[in-house]
């Protein structure tokens, strides 16, 4: 049935960026994550923690703090400006200079009317939140040190600010500093080092919780300005604090990579004398934990090891269910690799440059599992640095390998690649149509004659490719008028159909011969993570964030028979419990019944001619089938053939010459390049 040579590619040096700050919006259940390179990612917690949107960063733009005010997202960084992000066009909407030097923290009050920022020069600046912008209102009393952290009292009348060696309580109405809480320095050698209050939280009963660089979590009485309780949690810094919605639980993240939970309970059952007691310790990271969020049911932490960890609290969720499992999101949920199928080229997208590689060649045949000798090594053809400061948002290479395009927040750049015998020439196409100003997704047609760019309002711009001047052919618009960005684009091999999916869970199909909307797939509640059009049968296959698989016939404009059977039977529970989304769908031109898809941990070939698996039988039955004789095999095999030998997969495509390309990025390679962790002395090591 299927024998493939597999190119195992490990030369993609993908290096994720450390997580710097997080903010959770409980109403929309979205988590905003700010990375060290300035990128902001939005995760949808209601939809299986799918990474919906990515706003790329820029050089020199760091984000130190994020804050949700209603549906709006604000961020502030060390460049001294407060930025509001446009979540529909995936770009910064505007930036307001605070004129206070680098901004360390930003926080909105519970009413959503004021925004307070803590600056390097020691001022807390208050900004009024208007409909379209924010406006500076006033400064609070200026202090002598930098303001590292801020917290509003839920009533909006008081602000606690953590500085160096002390915490100040301000009255928000008058702007005066009322109390000064002096934080003790560490013992011993660290007595000479100033203690930095990295994080403060103001609770509604006027308790202030602070985490500082001496490793203490301290509870203060905000009325009198006195220390109630000190907990020495770690020898290193306590970098982040988060409090739950009902204020009964506080979590603290440390440099030692542990997260400690404190709960407001009484030490003996039945009595009412509640106090803050240290309860749980979570050790899910290997490096510093710099950002924390406490949702209703889980603790979300992120730090220098670049992984986002969601730890459900077992007293809030049911044990041993899908809900209560630990989730680690280490890789992006969108593809950073584009493959030129006919030419055997791979395009790797980095935030600051692009790399084009030619795959190596091997010879000979072998048995399953053999390593073949490499006749010609893969070589890097082009290293293209992006122009300007903005990071690359998306990129594509045409199937013939002759065109290269990338888009940033500010523009799109198209290049023509000429292959001579041993020489590669790259020329920029200077004249692009005006409608091609920015793109969320890019895709080439299979005959390399057209470029499709997804731009604002879920529309797709079609551009004819020409080495001298590219002309705008058409703009395809959906009827629904959705404002959400398109995150998936797919064109069929015969050039007749184009499918686009946006983050509103809508999938639109356009007829390219007539250049108009063909149909809209019925909206499913979960966001599609991968789409593909079968070259032979013209069926659209979509896989969603909750791991559901659908097949839609474009000719008949309805779900196919196979898809209905699958829905009736239901997918196998092991399939549904996977926690990484399917990133790419591809097809085998020789066998139209095969659908090849992959996620981070597995490669799967769905054979539509075989029966669907029963819920009772194991899903991963490849090993078992190998041991059976031929006759038995055909009876036992089912449609889902899963291979887990390649990890961690960033991309998997099928080339025209029937070879698979698996781009792997082992976690070990990433961990070895992270910044230094703390030195921990463990017993017996």
């Amino acid at each position, binding site marked *: *049935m*299927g*024998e*493939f040579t*597999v*190119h195992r*590619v490990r*030369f993609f040096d993908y290096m994720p960026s450390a997580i710097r700050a997080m903010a959770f919006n409980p109403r929309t259940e979205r988590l905003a994550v700010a990375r060290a390179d300035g990128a902001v990612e939005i995760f949808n917690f209601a939809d299986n923690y799918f990474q919906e949107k990515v706003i790329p960063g820029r050089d020199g733009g760091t984000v130190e703090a994020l804050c949700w005010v209603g549906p709006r997202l604000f961020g502030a960084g*060390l*460049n001294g400006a407060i930025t509001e992000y446009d979540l529909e066009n995936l770009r910064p909407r505007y930036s307001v200079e605070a004129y206070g*030097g*680098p901004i*360390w923290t930003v926080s909105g009050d519970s009413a959503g009317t004021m925004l307070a920022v803590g600056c*390097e020069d020691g001022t807390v600046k208050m900004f009024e939140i208007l409909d379209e912008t924010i406006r500076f209102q006033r400064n609070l009393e200026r202090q002598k040190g*930098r303001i590292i952290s801020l917290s509003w009292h839920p009533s909006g009348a008081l602000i606690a600010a953590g500085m160096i060696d002390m915490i100040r309580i301000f009255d928000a109405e008058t702007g005066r500093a009322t109390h000064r809480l002096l934080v003790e320095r560490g013992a011993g050698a*660290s007595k000479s080092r100033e203690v930095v209050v990295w994080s403060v939280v103001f609770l509604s009963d006027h308790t202030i919780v602070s985490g500082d660089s001496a490793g203490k979590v301290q509870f203060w009485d905000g009325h009198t300005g006195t220390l109630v309780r000190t907990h020495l949690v770690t020898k*290193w810094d306590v970098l982040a604090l988060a409090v739950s919605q009902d204020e009964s639980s506080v979590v603290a993240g440390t440099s030692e990579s542990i997260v400690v939970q404190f709960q407001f309970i009484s030490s003996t059952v039945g009595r009412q004398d509640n106090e803050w007691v240290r309860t749980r310790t979570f050790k899910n990271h290997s490096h510093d934990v710099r950002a924390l969020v406490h949702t209703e049911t889980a603790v979300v932490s992120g730090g220098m090891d670049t992984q986002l960890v969601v730890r459900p609290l077992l007293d809030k969720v049911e044990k041993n269910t899908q809900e209560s499992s630990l989730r680690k999101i280490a890789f992006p949920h969108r593809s950073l690799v584009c493959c030129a199928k006919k030419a055997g080229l791979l395009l790797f997208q980095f935030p600051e440059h692009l790399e084009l590689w030619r*795959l*190596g060649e091997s010879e000979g*045949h072998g048995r*399953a599992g053999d*390593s*073949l000798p*490499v006749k010609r*090594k*893969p070589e890097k053809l082009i290293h293209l*640095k992006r122009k300007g400061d903005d990071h690359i948002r998306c990129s594509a290479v045409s199937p013939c390998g002759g065109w290269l395009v990338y888009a940033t927040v500010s523009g799109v750049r198209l*290049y023509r690649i000429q292959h001579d015998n*041993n*020489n*590669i020439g*790259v020329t*920029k196409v200077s004249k692009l149509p005006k409608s091609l100003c920015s793109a969320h997704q890019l895709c080439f047609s299979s005959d390399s004659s057209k470029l499709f760019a997804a731009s604002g309002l879920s529309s797709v711009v079609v551009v004819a490719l020409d080495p001298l001047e590219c002309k705008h052919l058409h703009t395809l618009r959906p009827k629904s008028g959705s404002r959400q960005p398109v995150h998936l684009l797919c064109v069929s091999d015969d050039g007749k159909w184009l499918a686009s999916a946006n983050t509103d869970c809508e999938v639109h199909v356009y007829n390219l011969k007539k250049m108009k909307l063909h149909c809209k797939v019925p909206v499913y509640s979960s966001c599609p993570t991968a789409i593909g059009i079968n070259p032979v049968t013209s069926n659209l296959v979509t896989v969603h964030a909750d791991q559901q698989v659908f097949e839609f016939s474009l000719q008949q404009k309805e779900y196919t028979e196979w898809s209905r059977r699958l829905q009736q039977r239901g997918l196998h529970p092991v399939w549904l*419990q*996977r926690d*990484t989304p399917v990133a790419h769908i591809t097809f085998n031109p020789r066998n139209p019944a095969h659908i090849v898809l992959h996620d981070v*941990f597995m490669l799967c070939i769905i054979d539509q001619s*075989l029966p669907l698996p029963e819920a009772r039988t194991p*899903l991963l039955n*490849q*090993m078992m*089938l*190998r041991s059976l004789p031929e006759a038995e*095999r055909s009876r036992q*095999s089912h449609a889902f*053939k*899963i*291979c*887990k*030998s390649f*990890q961690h997969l960033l991309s998997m495509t099928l080339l025209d010459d029937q070879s698979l390309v698996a781009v792997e990025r082992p976690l*070990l390679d990433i961990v*070895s*390049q992270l910044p*230094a*962790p703390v*030195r*921990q002395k*463990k017993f017996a*090591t």
Partner: protein
Amino acid sequence: MALIYNRNTRRLRLTSLAVVLLLATSRQTFPRGSNHVLFVSSSPADDNNMARKQRGATAHGSSKTADNGDGGHAEHFSLLLESSDDEAPEEVTFEDSKTQALRSMKDALDTVRREKEQLKEKRRRRQELFQEQKKRRLLPADVLEEIDSSSFAKKQKPSDDKAEEQQQEEDDEEEEERGKTQKKRSGKLAHARNLKGNYTVATVKERSSATFQQQVAQDFIQSRLYGPGSCRTTNNELLSLQNKKGRNQSAAVQFVKKDWEMAKKKTTTTTTTWFRIYGSNFIRDDKKFVSS
């Protein structure tokens, strides 16, 4: 003039006052075991002359010598006289002692001046060396002139040129590393010029004070988290500890060189495997399906 050689400390001491004792020529000899050896610079005949001169000028000479810090000399005098108490002290003429004193002062001044000159010379030589090195580092004068003239023309597009320069440098770097395939940069900018060597000169964007403040803030975080006193270790150690404490204990993760990653990438890249799917024959994998 007398040179006194101290056998114990092996030091030669020159007495400025010419206290000449006729010990060498007198009948009195030094007791055995004495640590002082006296070398008398003048011959006995001269001594007599000196004595005569001294006798002749004792009137004002001795008083003068008495005034001129005689205490120190008197000490020498008394020490030396330990062995011969009954001999009359030798008289030294004032002129002699004066000339001696003046000469010694001149000598001292001379040495100081000489040292100063030596230092000055050394400093001058170092300065010259630095100038020469600096001259070597700068481009030749004609190149600088050309840059100067072209920089006015290029003032409109400073940022592009800087990017071009970076790309040029980057490309040059890349070209050196991978000599086989050639690459050309796209979009040759009209205002960029290729000067001698691999340089493209462009006006640089002005660094505002905001970036300086940003740098200060970043340095603050960096020093607090990774600076001295932060007790950090390496990723190598972290991974090695994990190996040691893990279920399948294995060896430490050893990076042979610091740029192991880069070296590894250059040599081994892909391995092609041949594998089959017809409902079976996948390579076994022990990992759980749900991610761990």
